[in-house]
Every structure is written in structure tokens, then in C-alpha cells.
């Protein structure tokens, strides 16, 4: 490793400072380049998104499995956090956000993947700036999204996938699926989806649709749990799942509100709709259960709420309260159907319903933003042509489904060949906690 790696450049990103606009003397520049208010908010938003992963998602998922596998879910969430952090430091950030060589409307390599300018954070100092926040903070905020996305799909193959396979698959998937998709959507001018005009405020495509697609492929390829459909596999700790739900919910304020990259009215309005949608979706799920089963369950409300949160994610920068209500309603109904009827009909064992909830939610939101983003329907997108936008969103969805689906198949095959996807039957029987990690969750 050569030391020139660390001869950092100063401020990578040019910004038009408020000072310049005001015609204040240059002295003001340094002071106003970074907004301490925006920085404060995005710092907290980053912490909130990390909090969604650990402990939020870990608790949400781990409560749903059987006691013998509770730690395996936690461990996978922790280790994914660690691995993706290191990928992000080494080559993830640069491949997602290095804009070197991008041309608006171009369809060369860099429309699909970033460059290598910022490899191992090259050039980033405490003084580097991105918009109105330190670049290091932009780095952290985006990192948390890269962390939680693979975290989501582990729910699909919970209770049976080998730990080493999860690790290896995460490395490959983040490198070959997440980074390109992230770049295509959020890479700025010259990025494939970005230039198409795709709207994805906080990751309906980048996060939920990719996770949902991979979850479907993985649930099928890893195969159902031993006894699935015959042996009862009720959640071992719904209290923990509900606690995790609440943490995800609150953290989502940072996820969606933070995606404004500033502490302003846009962030606040994003939070308003991020609150409305899960409320409507959770109530919708509860009402369906009330009608069909006779009793609204807490797990049902929670599942609906997460679906509503996933669905509002891509739309949260564009829709108003009306859109949020409709997105909540549609995602509640659609995800209920996807996670119960559809799953049973198709027969795959998506253990923790990643496909139905995140895939379904991501789909609903990514499409409906094209409708309810329009000013006439209470949205904030000026000049939105609903039909055209629906086409754009649909295209992006289709491309992502295919790209992510095919890659998932290939990578899972590779991982199977290298280390084997599944634990042994004995480990599955005694539980992954003992089998993979040599410990147990509780000893009351």
C-alpha cells in the first residue's frame, strides 16, 4: 500500500455558496459552505438509518424466527453492517458516486457504474464538501443505505442459509448489484435511470425492489425450511418484533427525511408522508384481518406499517398527504395479498416475507409516485406528465427486476458451488445459533 494513496485532495465537490449569492466578502465562504443545520440533521439521519439496521431490523427479524435461530439473524445483521462498511470505504462509495467521466444522456460505462477516483476514500478530508454538508457525512449517509439493503433480504432465507454463504453472497451482491443500481439511480447527471427521469427519492428501487427481487430468487434457490408447511413455525418473540418495528418506523424519519440532504421543508414534508403511509397501511392490514380472521393482530398491523413505509420511500419527496393515504391503502392491500395468498399459491418459503412486504411495497410506491407526485393530486412535482412518468418508472422497475433477478441467480449458484448455500440437516434441526455460532440466545 503506497502512501500516495493518502495524499488527499481538498474539497471534491464545487458548490455555489450562499455567501456568493449574497455578494458577501470571500471570508464568508468558508463559513457558509457547510450548513451546520443541514449537517446536524444528516448526521442524525445517518445514525437513525444505522439504528434501523442494528438493532431495528435485527430485532424485527429475529423475533419472527424460532428461538434456536434468534442469534443468527442478529449476527448476520451485524456482520453485513461490518462488511458493507468496509466495501463502502474501499470501493463502494467511489463506484456509486464518483461522477468522473459522466456525460448527461451518455450511455457509456459510467451511466451504469461510477469511477475509481475515490477508492479507499481518496481525496476526502474533513474539509471536503458535498452540497451543503461535509462529504464525509454524505459518505456515511449513503453507506447506511448500502448496509440496510442486503440486510433486508436475509429474511427470505432465514433459519437455513449457511453463515459463510450469507457473508460471501453479501460481498458479491453489494458489489455487483447494489453499487450499479445505486449509481444508475442516484449517480447524478449522466446516470442511466437518473437521465431517464426516474423518481426514487429514498430508495424504492435502489433498496426495496432490489431486496425484494433477490429475496424471491433466494427463497426459491435456497429452498424451503425443513418441515415448512407441516411443522408450525410461529414467531418466538413478537414483543421483540414489535419493538423492532417501532425502531424501523422512527428510523425511517431519517431514511426518508434525510434523503432531502438538508433540514428544510422538503425533509419535513417527506416526514409527514412517511408518517401517514404506515398508519394507513397498518390500519388497512388490521381491518383486512378483522374481516377475514375476525381479529386484528399486532403482527398484522406491524407488517402493514412496514409495507407502508417501504411504499412511501420512493415517493416521499414528491407526494402530499393525499398521495400518502392512497399509497398506504394500496400497499396495505397489495402486500397483504402478496405475503399471504400469492406466497402460498406459489409455494416458496420466504420466511420473513421480504418479497411481499419490501418487494411489494417498493413496487407500489415506485409506480404510484408517478401518479400522486402530480400537483393536481396534491404532489410537489411540477410539470409531471403522469402517463409518461408511469412509463419511465415501469421501465426502471422492469430493468431492475431482470438485472437483479439474473444476477441473484448467478451469484447464488456461485456461492453454492463455493461454500454451499444450506446448513446441514442437523444444524437446521438444532438451530443455527448453536450450529453456526456455538451459542444460544436465552438461558433464563
Amino acid at each position: 500500500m503506497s502512501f500516495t494513496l493518502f495524499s488527499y485532495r481538498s474539497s471534491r465537490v464545487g458548490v455555489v455558496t450562499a455567501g456568493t449569492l449574497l455578494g458577501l466578502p470571500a471570508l464568508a465562504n468558508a463559513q457558509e459552505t457547510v450548513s451546520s443545520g443541514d449537517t446536524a440533521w444528516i448526521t442524525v439521519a445517518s445514525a437513525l438509518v444505522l439504528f434501523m439496521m442494528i438493532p431495528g431490523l435485527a430485532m424485527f427479524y429475529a423475533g419472527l424466527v424460532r428461538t434456536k435461530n434468534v442469534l443468527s439473524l442478529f449476527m448476520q445483521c451485524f456482520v453485513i453492517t461490518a462488511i458493507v462498511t468496509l466495501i463502502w470505504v474501499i470501493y463502494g462509495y467511489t463506484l456509486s458516486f464518483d461522477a468522473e467521466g459522466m456525460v448527461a444522456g451518455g450511455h457509456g460505462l459510467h451511466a451504469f457504474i461510477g469511477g475509481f477516483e475515490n477508492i479507499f476514500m481518496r481525496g476526502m478530508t474533513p474539509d471536503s464538501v458535498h452540497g451543503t454538508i461535509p462529504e464525509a457525512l454524505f459518505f456515511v449517509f449513503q453507506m447506511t443505505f448500502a448496509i440496510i439493503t442486503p440486510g433486508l433480504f436475509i429474511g427470505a432465507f432465514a433459519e437455513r442459509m449457511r453463515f459463510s454463504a450469507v457473508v460471501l453472497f453479501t460481498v458479491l451482491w453489494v458489489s455487483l448489484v447494489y453499487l450499479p443500481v445505486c449509481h444508475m439511480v442516484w449517480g447524478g447527471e449522466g446516470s442511466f435511470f437518473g437521465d431517464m427521469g426516474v423518481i426514487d427519492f429514498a430508495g424504492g428501487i435502489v433498496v426495496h425492489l432490489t431486496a425484494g427481487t433477490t429475496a424471491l430468487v433466494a427463497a426459491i434457490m435456497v429452498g424451503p425450511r425443513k418441515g415448512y408447511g407441516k411443522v408450525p413455525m410461529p414467531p418466538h418473540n413478537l414483543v421483540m418484533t414489535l419493538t423492532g418495528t417501532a425502531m424501523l418506523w422512527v428510523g425511517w424519519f431519517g431514511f426518508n427525511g434525510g434523503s432531502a440532504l438538508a433540514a428544510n421543508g422538503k425533509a419535513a414534508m417527506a416526514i409527514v408522508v412517511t408518517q401517514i403511509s404506515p398508519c394507513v397501511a397498518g390500519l388497512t392490514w388490521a381491518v383486512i384481518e378483522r374481516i377475514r380472521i375476525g381479529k386484528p393482530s399486532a403482527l398484522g398491523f406491524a407488517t402493514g406499517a412496514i409495507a407502508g413505509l417501504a411504499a412511501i420511500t420512493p415517493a416521499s419527496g414528491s407526494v402530499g398527504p393525499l398521495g400518502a393515504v392512497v399509497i398506504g391503502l394500496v400497499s396495505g392491500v397489495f402486500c397483504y395479498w402478496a405475503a399471504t395468498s400469492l406466497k402460498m399459491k406459489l409455494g416458496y418459503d420466504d420466511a420473513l416475507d421480504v418479497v411481499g412486504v419490501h418487494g411489494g411495497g417498493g413496487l407500489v410506491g415506485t409506480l404510484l409516485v408517478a401518479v400522486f407526485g402530480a400537483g393536481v393530486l396534491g404532489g410537489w412535482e411540477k410539470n409531471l406528465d403522469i402517463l409518461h412518468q408511469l412509463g419511465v418508472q415501469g421501465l426502471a422497475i422492469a430493468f431492475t427486476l431482470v438485472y437483479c433477478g439474473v444476477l441473484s441467480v448467478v451469484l447464488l449458484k456461485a456461492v453454492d458451488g463455493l461454500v454451499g448455500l444450506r446448513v446441514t440437516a442437523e444444524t437446521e434441526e438444532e438451530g443455527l445459533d448453536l450450529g453456526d455460532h456455538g451459542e444460544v440466545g436465552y438461558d433464563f
Partner: protein
Amino acid sequence: MKKIEAIIRPSKLNDVKEALTATGCQGMTSIEVKGFGRQKGHTEVYRGAEYVVEFQPKVKVEAVVPDDHAQAAVEAILKAAATGSIGDGKIFVSTIDEAFRIRTGESGEDTL
């Protein structure tokens, strides 16, 4: 000596304990168990997956008593544990050959 095993409703444990001690029984052991019988179970539904839970939470009380106290003990339990609804439980009586108090090493009915 006789061993009285009574499978009862968890909410009746305290009443049974008091009834037994009233008959002169100075010790007993209780165990959380799950019972299957005529009492029907309940259904839990998690995201559309239904689980019929046929085993009910019950408590088993075990008391070893001198032969001539057995009947009184049984009657006390019958009275204390009954509600009249299905699921009240059973009492089984069997024979104990020998009993020891660990603390002292003594054996016989005096140890109970």
C-alpha cells in the same frame, strides 16, 4: 405412601396449595405442563399462517402423603380445583415405595 399427581388449571394453584396444607400436607412440588384433552384449544394466526394449539397450559401438583392421608388430600384437591367447566383436570394416585429427606438422610413417612 401415596403420590398424588393433580393436573389443574394454573389459576387454581394457590387454592390447591392451601387446601392441601389444610389437610396436613406439608410439602408439594408444582410443574408447568401442557395438557391435551377434551378442552378444545385455540387458533393463532401469524401473517395468514394458522396454528391450532391443542395443548393448554396446566399445572401439575405432586404431593407424596402417608397412605391414610391420601383420600383427604384427593378430596381437598377435587374441591379446590373444580370450576365445573371442561379442562379442570385429573388426579392420579400411585404408590411410593420409599421416601428420603436429603437434608438429614432420614427415610419413611416422617420425611414428608
